[in-house]
């Protein structure tokens, strides 16, 4: 068994009357990406703030990087790097000065500091902008500088709080690439996100935070297995073809108004072929065929209810199934 980079037991935190975290357990093995997924206001940021020593928990045992967070916060701080939701760069000074500031605070020698700063600026494609004030950077550049600053001390555990919120698709993919590269270097990444796709793309394990607790935890595959939702969708324009197809296929859900059939299944090649064979045998051709595999959206809506995120017609919330 690999050792844990982050281990939290019974994490509790309330702000006044409002209970934000109500007994959260987390364990993140070294060298993995762990994603805390949840709607806005679920307490993701609070969890990161606690684990990164920024705020104190009301209760709970926390070990980060092998150190007891309550007893030795400075040792935890020495092991971690944090990139918060809101840019933690000094906008008044240049990108390079921001990097050198970090180098100084990590007590690197002047020469070493310059080397590390130049290297990271290069790696994050900021060399050209290095002498401009950080306040003039675009959102994506600020976020890259933010991460570059976090990496100056070569932290073994990195907290990324919604690192791609507000970024355009291109910057988001760049950020994903950066995060993947971090982990190949053996770094542990604790990532919060409200984007299911992001967790699916990056995380080894995902925990869904809802109502102050962990609603579900597992790999993306495990979570997807929690809810049914996979199907092949066939749409017709000819009512006769629609009826023949409905007769030829077993176990379909009919939608007579839109002439659409839903064939439940896992979307595998074998199943798809069986569906197509039956349609061929009946001599009908669908006008449109789509394969829908259960994704984290299904899981997310099933676990957290529809109140916090707009429901999508094709992927209804399935609270009953999830409860099974």
């Amino acid at each position, binding site marked *: 068994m690999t050792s844990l980079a982050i281990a939290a037991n019974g994490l509790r935190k309330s702000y006044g009357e409002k209970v934000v975290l109500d007994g959260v357990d987390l364990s993140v093995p070294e060298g993995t990406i762990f994603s805390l997924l949840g709607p806005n206001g679920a307490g993701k940021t609070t969890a990161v703030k606690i684990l990164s020593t920024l705020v104190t928990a009301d209760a709970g045992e926390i070990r980060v990087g092998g150190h007891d967070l309550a007893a030795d916060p400075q040792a935890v701080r020495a092991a971690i790097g944090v990139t*918060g939701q809101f840019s933690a760069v000094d906008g008044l000074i240049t990108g390079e*000065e921001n990097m050198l500031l970090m180098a100084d605070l990590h007590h690197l020698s002047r020469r070493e500091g310059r080397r590390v700063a130049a290297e990271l600026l290069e790696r994050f494609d900021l060399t050209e902008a290095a002498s401009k004030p950080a306040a003039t950077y675009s959102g994506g550049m600020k976020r890259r500088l933010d991460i570059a*600053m976090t990496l100056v001390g070569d932290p073994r555990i990195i907290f990324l709080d919604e690192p791609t919120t507000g970024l355009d698709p291109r910057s988001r993919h760049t950020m994903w690439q950066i995060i993947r590269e971090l982990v190949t270097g053996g770094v542990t990444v604790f990532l919060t996100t409200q984007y299911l796709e992001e967790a699916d793309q990056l995380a080894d394990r995902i925990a869904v935070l809802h109502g102050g607790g962990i609603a579900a935890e597992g790999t993306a595959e495990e979570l997807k297995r929690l809810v049914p939702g996979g199907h092949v969708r066939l749409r017709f324009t000819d009512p006769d073809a629609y009826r023949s197809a409905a007769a030829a296929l077993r176990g379909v859900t009919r939608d007579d108004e839109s002439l659409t059939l839903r064939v439940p299944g896992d979307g595998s090649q074998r199943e798809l072929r069986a569906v197509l064979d039956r349609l061929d045998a009946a001599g009908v051709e669908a006008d449109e065929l789509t394969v829908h595999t259960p994704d984290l959206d299904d899981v997310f809506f099933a676990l957290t209810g529809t109140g916090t995120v707009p429901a999508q017609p094709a992927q209804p919330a399935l609270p009953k199934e999830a409860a099974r």
Partner: protein
Amino acid sequence: MSTLALAVRDSSTMLRRNLLHARRYPSMTLNLLLTPVMLLLLFVYIFGDVMSAGIGGADRSDYVAYLVPGILMLTIGGTVIGTAVSVATDMTEGIIARFRTMAIHRGSILIGHVTGSVLQCLASVVLVGAVAVAIGFRSTDATVLEWLAALGLLTLFSLALTWIAVGMGMASPNAEAASNSAQPLILLPLISSAFIPAETMPGWFRPIAEYQPFTPAIETLRGLLLGTGIGHHGWLTLAWSLALTALGYVWSTSQFSRDPK
């Protein structure tokens, strides 16, 4: 690294950051200098003759001598308003949250601000002092020791007002609120002995003017530079400075060690 070495190293890093801000954006520092310089010129060249007669002086140059120590103390009060604003602004920035999650000396963030502010106060005093000298201010036979004591007094008073301003900045949600709550620091000198002697003020008001922090500090500086009597003002200044420093320190650090929102 020992705790002390860590504190010194991190604090000097933070100081460098604050001085970099001040150097990159000098407009605020210079704006704050405007008030003392304007008041100096106004009181010397517009009101000078009347004021001079009021204090029993022969001509305007007597009033220049009387006025300058007060203007120098007022300069400190004005400069630390900038400190309150920059602390308030800084605390709303994400970078402070980053500092808090780093293995650095906890106090270095505030120490950097305080040291930077005191240096800025002294630089401002030198600049305003230069204007004063340019319009005819001269010290009368101050010894080297008295000059050093004057420098020490200005530093100590800057430190005291700085800590109060840092506390005000920490307590303010934004720059505007910080600027407002720090206003008394430049208004207090107006009701001190900076412009007219306290004993010429209405009787009921005199104690307020006499025992507020600025009057003893101004009287002490006057004594050191111009050879007027210092008397109990020296002790009062020392007491006020230490008390304000301690109060500001406890207020600021207790706010800083609280969990950020």
